[in-house]
Every structure is written in C-alpha cells, then in structure tokens.
C-alpha cells in the first residue's frame, strides 16, 4: 500500500518523538531551576544519574559506601540482603533527592546569593562532578540493571495493528513499550507541574520568585524555602528521567553525558519555558532521527545523531536567540 521507505520513515519519526520525550524530561529539570533562581544547573544530568543509582541501590538493598566501609574497617559488607519493592524504593529515592536539594541550598547556593551567573554556573559544574564522584563512592561504578516493572520491548499490538499498511512483506511498526510509558509519564508529570505552579500557594510563590525576587520578599515569601522546593522538584524530575533512561539503557555513568543533550533542547525551547522544553525535546528527538534516516545515513556516512542537535541549536542561536518560547529580548534605549 505504501512504499516501505515511507513507512520506515514514519516509524523513525515515532521513535524520534519517544526519544524526544526523554530529552524533554531532562530539559524540564533545567527550566525549573533556571526560572526560579537564574541558576543554569549543569548538574541536572548527574542528578538524574544519582537518582537512578540511589533507586537501584535501595531496591537491591545495597550497603551505601560499602567500599569505603570495607576499606576502613576490614569488613566485607555489600548487601543488606533484602529487596525493597519498587514503589517504596521510589519514595525513598525521592526523599533522598529532597535531602539533596536542602543540602545544595544550605551549603552552596545560600552563600552565593547575588553572585554573577557565571559563578553560579561554575558552582553547578563543581556540584556535578562532586555528585558523580559521590554517587560512585556511595553505590559503586558498575553498570546496573534497573527494573521497576515497566514493560519493555516492542509492542506486538502496535506491530500487528500497523502491519497491513505496507502489504504482505511489511512487519509493522516497532515501538518500544518503555517509550510509550515514558511518554505517558512525561505528559502526566508536565500536567502535574503546571497545575502545581498555577493553583497552589507554593506554586504561586514559586512563580512570584521566578518573576521578581524583591517583590517576592516584600509579600513574605522565603527565597530559601522556594529554592529548596524548586531543587526538590528538579530532583523529582531527575528521578523520573533517571528511571526512564536507566530502564532503557542501564544505570551507568554515561547517563550524565546523554543528559547534556538537554542543552540544545533548551536553546530551541528557551530556558524559561516549560512548554518550550517539551516541544524543544520533541523537535530534537524527531529531528536527529529523521536527519540520520534521510540525509545522515545515505550521504554522510551516518552517526549524525551525535552532533545534529547541537548544529540545530547553533542555527537557532543565530536566528532566534531567545528560543521558540523564550521571553523576547528587547533592549530599551
């Protein structure tokens, strides 16, 4: 019915959308913190990694800092010997992320209020590498399998339902069930975040802080509290992103590098826009898959996925520096 090439292109597009959802999830964490505090949090990717490591560690009943403990005391402990159910482990991991948000605020950013953005940025780079090393020390550096019960592998239902499109020798679309779950979770997450920001007291305070610090103080909002809240939310988003990435490709340290794909996403979507992060993520996901399929693989020898997003972002920076949804930069003279 349709030429195979076309159908394959559609499948590539769908997979691109799903990959884009994961980029969007990480980008969302960046946007939350940037909006509320003007801090560009380089550590967002590492937070996702740290959250996933913690989740696996808790589920498997791993002893935190076991290498350190064993080296110091000559013991040989590795596991508590219990397994924590996924749901409880996710709640515990979330509690750890809230604790982390509190530590980050009280030990780092409280002392840097009013500093130049570049200094705040450098602080987050320091934080990123500290957390990477700390995560390593706490949970070990080997690649771990994360299984919280999300279905994985191709969806036969979709494959069968679409097989007729291409006639007899077509196998139907291959779409990973995990990607579908990720997309659904991402949509729910965004709806929840927007509802929280729009309709609750703390959400209103959060938006107020994002808009004007001085005015926020004058109506009695504690900036420290809001920043802990925002870092906690970013930690929550990081946990969700970490679960999805981790379930897809195992919990490993390259996760923090994949997360840097969120940078071009932010340049497209704008650093201050939640819908921008979502749309930017989808554009990058679809764009890099389609580019690879249409131009990269046939003409450029492939492997364009590594740099396509950054190229796209560069083009955007030249022609629309505020991104698709960012606030327009107007200089008044």
């Amino acid at each position: 019915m349709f030429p195979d090439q076309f159908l394959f292109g559609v499948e590539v597009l769908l997979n691109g959308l799903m990959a884009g959802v994961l980029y969007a999830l990480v980008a969302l964490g960046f946007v939350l913190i940037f909006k509320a505090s003007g801090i560009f949090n380089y550590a967002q990717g590492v937070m996702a990694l740290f959250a996933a490591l913690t989740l696996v560690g808790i589920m498997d009943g791993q002893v935190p800092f076991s290498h350190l403990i064993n080296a110091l005391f000559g013991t040989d402990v590795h596991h508590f010997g219990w397994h924590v159910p996924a749901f409880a482990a996710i709640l515990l991991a979330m509690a750890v992320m809230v604790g982390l948000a509190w530590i980050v605020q009280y030990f780092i950013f409280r002392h840097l209020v009013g500093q130049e953005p570049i200094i705040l940025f450098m602080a987050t780079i320091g934080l990123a590498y500290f957390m990477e090393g700390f995560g390593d020390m706490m949970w070990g550096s080997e690649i771990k399998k994360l299984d919280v019960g999300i279905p994985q592998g191709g969806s036969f239902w979709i494959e069968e339902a679409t097989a007729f499109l291409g006639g007899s020798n077509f196998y139907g679309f291959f779409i990973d069930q995990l990607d579908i779950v990720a997309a659904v979770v991402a949509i729910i997450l965004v709806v929840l975040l927007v509802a929280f920001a729009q309709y609750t007291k703390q959400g209103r305070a959060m938006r107020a802080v994002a808009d004007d610090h001085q005015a926020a103080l004058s109506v009695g909002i504690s900036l420290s509290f809001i920043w802990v809240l925002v870092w906690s939310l970013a930690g929550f988003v990081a946990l969700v992103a970490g679960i999805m990435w981790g379930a897809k490709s195992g919990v490993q340290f390259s996760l923090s590098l994949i997360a840097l794909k969120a940078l071009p996403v932010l340049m497209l979507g704008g650093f201050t826009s939640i819908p921008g992060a979502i749309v930017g993520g989808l554009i990058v996901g679809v764009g890099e898959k389609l580019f690879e399929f249409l131009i990269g693989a046939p003409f450029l020898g492939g492997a364009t996925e590594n740099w396509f997003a950054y190229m796209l972002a560069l083009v955007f920076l030249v022609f629309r520096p505020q991104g698709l949804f960012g606030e327009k930069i107007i200089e008044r003279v």
Partner: protein
Amino acid sequence: MFDQAESFVTADGRTIGAVMMEMKNITLRFGGVVAIKDISFDVREGEIRAIIGPNGAGKSSMLNVISGFYHPQEGEVWYKGARRPEMKPFEVARQGIARTFQNIALFEGMSVLDNVMTGRLNHMKSGILSQAIWYGKAEREETENRAVVERVIDFLEIQHIRKTPVSRLPYGLKKRVELARALAADPKLLLLDEPMAGMNVEEKEDMSRFILDVNDEFGTTIVLIEHDMGVVMDLSDRVVVMDYGKKIGDGPPDEVRNNQAVIDAYLGVAHD
C-alpha cells in the same frame, strides 16, 4: 513630645493611637557613606506618617530599614513594644508590614489578580502536601482569600483589569496594583515609597484619595515617602524631614512647614 502610651487628637481633629513602631538612633552606612545618621522617630497607630527630604536624603534607606531590606549598623527598631531582632524582609512582611517600591516591583508576567493574590500568601496556612492534592482545607482557604482579594480590587477600582497581565498596564495603574497587593496582606503597617512619583495630577489625586480611604476604612497605619510637598501636607498627620541622612524636623505639617531648617534645606531659600 507626647506620652508614648497615650493617644491624642491632631490639629485637624483626628485621633491618633499609641506608639506602634519606634526607630531609636538608627545609623546606616554603606562602606564609607553614611546614608542615615543617628535618626530616631516613632510611628503611632492609625496615623499617616510622612518622611520627606531632598533627593539622596536617605528616605528610601529608612523605609528599607523598616522593611528589613537593609540592616542598620547602629540603633534599634522597636515594633509593638518589643525590640525587633535583625530580620529578613520576608519575616518582616509576616509580621504584618507590607510595602510598595519606588520603582514598582510587581510580578510582570502574572495577571493583576494573581499579583494581588500573592499578597495573601501569608494568610494561607495549609501545608504543602494538602496544597498539592487540593484537599478540603486548601480549597476553602483559596476561596476565602479570593474574597478578600476581590474586595481590595473593588476598593481600588481596578476590576476592569483583573485578568490583564501586569506588563501591559500603564505606569499609574501599576502603582495602584502594587498598592492592592500590599493591602491584600491586611497589613498593620503599610509602607509606601513615593506612591505618586511620576504620576500626572489626576492620578495623584486618585492615589491621595485611596491612601486616605485606606487609612480611614481599615485604620491602617501608613508611612509614606513623598517628594510633592503639597500632597504630603494634605495627607499626613505628622512629618519627619531628612536631609543628608540627618533628621532636621519632626512634627505636624504646619509646624514643619514653618521650621527654618526645613525651609533652608528642603525648599531652598524662601523667595517671597
């Protein structure tokens, strides 16, 4: 001049309450620059207290000391009969002291209604979890606070712009929205930093009327900074005059107007 605990009646027949806030020997320095030099004055319940002075006299700094944005190196702030420890601005706000800013500090991206609602944040007690799931108490609170906000909006006659994003409003209306947000907090003490700066005559008259009405209807104590001498003399019950960080006059408008030091410093040499 008057007994601290006693109320008294002003020249134009208004009754002013006991001392609510007292600034004692406040000195504020920025590096080597002395912004406020050993100033003391008090604010009585229910009065409109003006702080006037030429540019750079330290008026805004004084307001910032009261609202906790600046911390004086020397001196004490007494509020409701107790010495106030050094507080952050949000803690001061939670004590029932609301303020507006000289250069307007509104949440530009939000609607007028949302801006005024932020004034109610300290009156919402329900915790973060019940807020997150919008559980009973949180919803009731939202409705109650919304009612208060609507009253304030009616009072200041800004119903027609309730849903308008603040960034689209003209300057005069922004000033009024800022006043609305401060009023929504139901403050004991309202600090107004040049509420009429940059306004035309008509807008100034409106704002004067609102300030008097607020004081009249809610009994809110008001401390205001203003350049326009005429406005200050009409509005205020008592006036503090500052010049180069020092207090050079304090008293009812008529008395201050005839004070030679004030005439020299503030009005320049008299020309009649």
